[in-house]
């Protein structure tokens, strides 16, 4: 397969970026999307040019490092998938790809396709934890958790913190990310004690970071690689 790639190049946070067009030819269908970019970078090294910087690490869809907006879709069009889990066979019918970074003022571009998502870390630091210290935990089975609650908590906890929900939201809201963490803890008896206070602090931090509010577009749950449901946002709001 041959692809024409329009890739966002931007030297650093201060500079103005633009799309540059490259060609990636003879790409095998079993090549992953990021491996296709690896191959492009190998070409660039050969031509003594600076490589395209993009975030990646585990390449198995769990660490949340990879990002990219592909033809207008964060993590590409495929549902329930992070960018690193896209394969070029998914693009067999397309020959032209527009690849750009996540766009949100709270996620500034630091180079090319890479953005800074430390705002998410700071939201977690504001309250995304249960205040327990090492050593003070009671026996694990001393507090029962119904299977439904445990499963619901897990469904929310599985968020990988990639930020696609922010990238797709017209308001650049981090509501889905924040709500997932709040709901994860709220489903569990050991987390419920701090629920209200936690929600207040995390939502406040979300606003401080410049993320918008939720106005029910629900695009976030569509692009979420972990299929986190917007019902988490409803629950979060009910805690306020």
């Amino acid at each position, binding site marked *: 397969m041959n692809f024409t790639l329009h890739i966002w190049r931007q030297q650093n946070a201060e500079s103005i970026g633009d799309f540059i067009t490259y060609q990636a030819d003879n790409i095998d269908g079993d090549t*992953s999307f990021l491996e296709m970019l690896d191959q492009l970078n190998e070409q660039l090294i050969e031509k*003594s040019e600076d*490589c395209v910087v993009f975030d990646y690490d585990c390449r198995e869809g769990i660490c949340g490092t990879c990002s990219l907006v592909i033809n207008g879709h964060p993590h590409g069009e495929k549902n329930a998938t992070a960018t690193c889990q896209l394969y070029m066979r998914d693009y067999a019918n397309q020959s032209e790809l527009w690849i750009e970074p996540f766009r949100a003022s709270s996620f500034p571009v630091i*180079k090319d396709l890479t953005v*800074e998502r430390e705002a998410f870390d700071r939201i977690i630091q504001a309250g995304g934890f249960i205040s*327990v210290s090492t050593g003070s935990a009671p026996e694990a*089975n001393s507090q029962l958790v119904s299977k439904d609650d445990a499963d619901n908590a897990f469904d929310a*906890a599985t968020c990988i913190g990639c930020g696609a929900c922010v990238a797709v939201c017209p308001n650049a809201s981090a509501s889905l990310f924040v709500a997932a963490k709040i709901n994860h803890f709220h489903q569990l008896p050991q987390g419920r004690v701090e629920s209200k206070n936690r929600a207040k602090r995390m939502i406040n931090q979300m606003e401080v970071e410049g993320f918008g509010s939720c106005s029910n577009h629900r695009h976030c749950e569509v692009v979420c690689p972990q299929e986190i449901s917007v019902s988490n946002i409803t629950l979060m709001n009910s805690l306020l």
Partner: protein
Amino acid sequence: MHNLNPNEPSGPIENRWEKHLFDLALIAPQNRKKYNIIVVGTGLAGASLCATLGEAGYNVKSFCYNDSPRRAHSIAAQGGINASKNYQNDGDSTWRLFYDTIKGGDFRARESNVYRLAQLSCNIIDQAVSQGVPFAREYSGYLANRSFGGTQVSRTFYARGQTGQQLLLGAYSAMSKEITSGRVIHQSRSEMLELIIVNDRARGIVVRDLVSGEISAHIADCVVMCTGGYSNAYYLSTNAKGCNTSATWRAYKKGAYFANPSFTQIHPTCVPPTGDNQSKLTLMSESLRNDGRIWAPKNIEDCDKDPNNINEEDRDYFLERMYPAFANLVPRDIASRALKGICDEGRGIGSKVNNQRLGVYLDFSSVIEKIGIEKVKEKYGNLFDMYESITGENPYQVPMRIYPAPHYTMGGLWVDYNLMTTINGLFATGEANFSDHGANRLGASALMQGLADGYFIAPQTVANYLAKSQFEEISNIHPEVVASLESVKVRIGKLMNAPKPKYSPDYFHQKLGRILWSACGMSREMEALEVSMKDISELQSEFWQNIKVTGSKKDFNQTLEKAGRVADFIELGHLMCLDAIDRKESCGAHARLEYLAESGDAKRDDENYSHVAAWEFQDEKPILHKEQLHFEFIKPSLRDYK
């Protein structure tokens, strides 16, 4: 030279850790804020350590190369975490977990360390549950367990197929709480490139800011390395792309002994490679082996057939045939070698890579028939989805294809019972050290070790070191600091300006990977290892002549990052082969073809090799030191899974 004293307590093994805790010096709460600790790497071991040290009141400075601690590769561990809670009343105990771990490691680990690990396993579960880790539960509300990776008791706690993710997020949230308290200062997108030693003690590190390219020195009273393993030496592995040996290798070159570098684990259940441009391999949790049956066609001519059209009598369920007692649940090394053997015979399946079919089937049809597709979905849903997204095949309908891949490294920096390396004030925890898994790690034990080290062991032993030491003030113009900064800059200059820049870092990395995979992978032999050492030496000189790094060093430059890591992997690869040559026995995952039993199983030589091989860096040739292992409580026996 270090005396390699493991500093183990003596007496009944049940009481050793408690006795040791009492003997360790303490620092009063009000004095803790006077001490500064650097933690390098914030995966399970590092994040749990940062959290615990912060809670205690120390000043912690931590670094990771990812854009957030939540992304560390601990997150990818799927199957679970062991603890000897004996909730299932199936005869489990601290002693049994201790026994299984020592035996699983093929009697190449230190008894005192392993017993302590088993003891602490239960505290980890308590801690994680209280942090809100959503472990699987029964309808009664009690925690669920499963049997995992070759154990005969159900002691594994799990959170669907994402146990590592949930435990890491637990440790990350605990660490985040301490960042808020101000006691932990964390810097992401930062890579340690040198260790600073002053008066024979680790006192700091040199770090490169991966975004700006700025090089800076950071001074503290001690340094803890929580930097993970080095499976990426093989290029293709299940590790995240960024995982590297650079931090441990810098420490090695500054005097920390590197123990058992050839002890690497090749995991049997990974998605097979499909071509030359493959950048990594993906692990499918070995919990799949609980219900999946592994087979290959009996006849070579069936190998390219649709598996569903191969008759039952033409299928070879080779693990069930070879190891009737443990069958599909034999330990990883045994499964991996058997699997490779089948493919080497030409009975592999899937597309050909370099003219060989690399894969066998992992078949779920019988369990689907038995318990129904819904139950199977509940157990393995996300793993099946992951497999389908990688291969485009539906494992509910077509058997999965699997092939072994490098996955975990038991070797690492040598540490004593206090997790201190041979450099004073330099500690190593989690996969970065060599301590608990011997020559082979059992499933669901990596998470356990990382968290035992981070939550419960290192916080105590680091405090003891600080309490017993006096620290002089060190400024940024101290000659050692200046020299360390300078050496980092010189090295980066060399990487950026090779005499004849020609090839990318990946070019060299792939070459190294191929050498190590064939000579120092699942089976090793003298001749091939010796050839590899020569090949690696040549690769090393070629690297420094021809490495081509484009872009600028004062910028976000992933090519430069890779080049530095590959340079270290090449040197480590050389040491891995040397260590494999020196160990003239088979043990655990280390299968020397000249020293296998007739059955093909590993044959240990306890008389000559019941030791930890700890290598000391020297310019000419590394020097081997041996820590003799003593088995006072468990008599070394043959690891027999027939």
